[in-house]
């Protein structure tokens, strides 16, 4: 952090000012002039929270994507299909057993198994041929999409939120002061906050696993140079399978999350594939903290964009990607 400030004082200043403005916007009571200019504070706070929680969901999808890419150089364009598959599995389990938690576990295991099969049966056979692997994932995504359309049809599904998570919760964030002087606090759906907290926990757990354990050390070494790693006697194929299973399983969990606070339908797979692509391009390919940063940026941009400039929301996301590519082609937090 200190090094960043030393090396890029101008950028650090811009970032600090932006954060300060954001904090002021979140915590202060807005003066009437500001409310007249850009609308109610409640709207803004809702958009920010929606953006951050959506960022949590994007992080779950993109972290698996970036992990697989970082280690195996495999641009898994079937990642969106894994997401959707996990969502459908979660939906089936939660309607069958009525347990929301169980649906996460089953979705993780089922999609991780699909990942293991893919890695063993397909990608292992064409190791080192990046382009061909990517083509194969495109083919797989088409096949998966059609199979899922076949089984589940074109309907919208929504995973049932468990009763203990339904309903809003009051946050200690002021939105306005009533004329009687009574403060008005923000109400926000509990389920989104819980899911966001869970994705933060998963993110931290992944970071710890990558930076503090032996397996994590092997994976990090593999990201840097997998040939040398293999030469040191690590059973790299096993590591590949494990990482692919973990990445796919995370996509499966994300599917259940997405199915809970949005909905599942054909086409969601491409949407989330695009989201993870942009997140990973912005954050830096192969970097978990990068995925987290990119996910929050893209989630915020999407939600704030859709509130304040509805017709051009997607352009904002895209512009962020363009700016990052122009200034820092390797992504914000990539090391190279």
């Amino acid at each position, binding site marked *: 952090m200190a090094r960043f400030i030393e090396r890029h004082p101008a950028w650090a200043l811009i970032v600090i000012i932006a954060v300060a403005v954001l904090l002021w916007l979140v915590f202060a009571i807005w003066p009437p002039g500001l409310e007249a200019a850009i609308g109610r504070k409640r709207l803004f706070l809702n958009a920010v929270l929606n953006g951050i929680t959506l960022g949590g969901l994007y992080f779950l999808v993109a972290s698996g994507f970036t992990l697989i890419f970082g280690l195996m150089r495999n641009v898994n364009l079937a990642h969106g299909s894994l997401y959707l598959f996990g969502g459908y599995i979660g939906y089936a389990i939660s309607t069958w057993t009525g347990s929301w938690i169980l649906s996460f576990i089953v979705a993780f295991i089922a999609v991780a198994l699909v990942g293991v099969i893919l890695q063993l049966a397909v990608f292992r056979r064409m190791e080192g041929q990046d382009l061909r692997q990517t083509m194969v994932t495109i083919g797989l995504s088409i096949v998966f999409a059609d199979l899922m359309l076949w089984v589940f049809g074109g309907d919208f599904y929504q995973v049932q939120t468990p009763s203990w998570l339904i309903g809003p919760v009051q946050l200690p964030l002021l939105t306005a002061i009533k004329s009687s002087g009574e403060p008005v606090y923000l109400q926000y759906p509990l389920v989104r906050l819980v899911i966001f907290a869970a994705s933060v926990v998963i993110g931290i757990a992944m970071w710890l696993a990558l930076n503090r354990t032996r397996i994590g050390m092997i994976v990090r070494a593999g990201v840097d140079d997998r040939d040398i790693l293999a030469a040191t006697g690590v059973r790299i194929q096993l590591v590949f399978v494990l990482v692919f299973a973990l990445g796919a399983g995370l996509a499966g969990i994300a599917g259940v999350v997405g199915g809970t606070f949005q909905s599942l339908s054909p086409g969601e797979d491409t949407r989330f594939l695009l989201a993870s692509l942009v997140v990973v391009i912005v954050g830096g390919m192969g970097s978990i903290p990068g995925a987290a940063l990119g996910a929050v940026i893209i989630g915020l941009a999407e939600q704030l964009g859709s509130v304040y400039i509805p017709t051009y929301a*997607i352009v904002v996301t895209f512009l962020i990607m363009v700016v990052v590519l122009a200034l820092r*082609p390797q992504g914000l937090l990539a090391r190279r």
Partner: protein
Amino acid sequence: MSLLQSTQFRPDPTTPTTRRALIRAWPEFQNPVAWLVALILVIMPLIANGFFLIEIFATTLILGIIALSLMFLAGYGGMVSLMQLTIAGFAGYMVAVFGVSGNANISLGWPWWLATPMALALATLFGTLGGALAVRTEGIYTIMITLAIGAAFYYFTNQNWAIFNGHTGINTVATPHFWGVDWRADIAFYYVTLGVAAICYFAVQYVSRAPFGLALQGVRDNSRRMAALGFNPNAHRIAAYAFAAFIAALGGVLQVWNYRQISPGSVSVGACIDVLIIAVVGGITRPIGPFIGALIFVLLRTFALDVLIKFGLDGNRFRLLIGLGFLAIVFWSSDGVIGLWERWRRRSASSTQRSDGGRHG
């Protein structure tokens, strides 16, 4: 390794120099099969009725042109761009926006001879800018970035009502009418697409053998060495994107004339990927590949329903069939249908020919 040299005709030393130069530039002229195919294509309106002429052959040629632009980038430049259909769609939208259409509040109503060049220029610019963005990274990153551009454009057309008219798109786009000919009438339109396809095909052939194309192939094979030799790899790549964007834009203009309407569905992510499938299935080492791939794709798309039902299967599983076919091609022949054909021919014609491993990418 050069895929081209390995397939180039080796001239007989006794032929005169001028003729030899011509043959070296255009080896197709020596190939009787090429002449036969050309003849069949020219007299097609005598053989096929309106449905086959437009729905099968004109559509094939249009998709082939768009896939050809991808083939040029992927085969000679080593850059797999998934935004070629997006460029084509952008050109189509621009034709609809600048020209005459049913949505009078959007279309500016320019005559076609003004609207079409405008659309081509804007789409080429769009493709060049996208390319300039994509060349900032390399290899598989290109796929990700161009896919992101394509998807962003798709969602943008869905959201934007001022220019792109949201998800309904722009309907009843006017088609050119001059010299007393309705150029959208079946036979005339077929010849227009055939002419444009032929021009694009030969242009790609020519460029691939011109100094620029050879330098581009050098950049594909070893950009560092090319840079050391004094070439500017990124400038070559961006120029390749510009050339490919122009070809894709031509395809897009033809496509909007063909369907007379354009909507976000025409630039969806699935459609972008279809173009990649067409090029890969046909083979991305030779300009003829995309047209073969397009023919297979269009035939499958048109008749898979009937065939599947005839076998007692669910007719809606066309995309499954396409996906599995694509997987099979990627698995067993890295050079698409052309590669399979070459391999089969080499096997049957024993070992007189030079062996070349059809590598791509």
